[in-house]
């Protein structure tokens, strides 16, 4: 670990020292997803359509002590009728080796376009949630999560 200190910032070393997983993941792991990869994924979902803010709420802790288990809740405002419902919700993480986290598909049989789950985060990063409505409108929201101990590799 000492050999790494010169190449890494103090913060990364501290994070690495706190979690053995992080020290393995940082220098040896595959390239982490970048923001542009998430932009590409968003483009894949949205195509040429405009992505608006709002209607979807994303609930994550500001600080996650353990990146292996981070609670995530999402909820989309929608009447969930056959005419007007949420078709899909996509969750992306820009700092994970694979930016894809989960893709949910809803039908009008779901009373709410909402779910609670637990995810892994490799490091401090921004989570993006995208909601696709039945009329084709797309809404998104973002939230940054500070991760103390990373949740991949090791």
């Amino acid at each position, binding site marked *: 670990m000492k050999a790494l200190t010169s190449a890494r910032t103090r913060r990364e070393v501290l994070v690495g020292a706190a979690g053995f997983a992080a020290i393995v993941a940082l220098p040896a792991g595959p390239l982490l997803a970048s923001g542009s990869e998430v932009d590409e994924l968003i483009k894949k979902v949205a195509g040429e359509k405009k992505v608006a803010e709002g209607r979807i709420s994303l609930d994550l802790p500001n600080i996650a002590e353990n990146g292996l288990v981070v609670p995530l809740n999402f909820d989309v405002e929608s009447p969930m009728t056959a005419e007007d419902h949420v078709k899909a919700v996509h969750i992306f993480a820009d700092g994970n080796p694979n930016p894809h986290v989960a893709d949910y598909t809803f039908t009008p*049989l*779901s*009373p709410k376009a909402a*779910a609670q789950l637990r*995810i*892994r*985060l490799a490091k401090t990063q921004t989570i993006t949630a995208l909601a696709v409505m039945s009329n084709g409108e797309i809404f998104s929201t973002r939230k940054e999560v500070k991760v103390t101990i990373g949740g*991949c590799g090791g």
Partner: protein
Amino acid sequence: MAAKVTPRVRMPATAKAGEIIEVKTLISHEMESGQRKDASGKIIPRHIINKFTATFNGKEILSADWHPAISANPYQSFSVRATESGLFVFSWFDDDGSVYKSEHQVTVS
């Protein structure tokens, strides 16, 4: 590991017509991400549950595609509506082809 995979679902057995009920699900699974290395430095191959579906009387309520960023022993909760008495089926699809199912009869009064 695969032999030990057990889905657990918590939801009421009875409900009022039209009531929104919360379903809590948990399944024991290591969700090996494909990023970790074993002691000899070899990458441990990915082995996760990649899909979850919930149906009511055979009709899909929701489905989820999961990626390696889902935590081990995936927990998930969501809402369903009890329109009539019927059977809820929850299925988890493993990378190795296994399907784990949990069935719940709900009686609407």
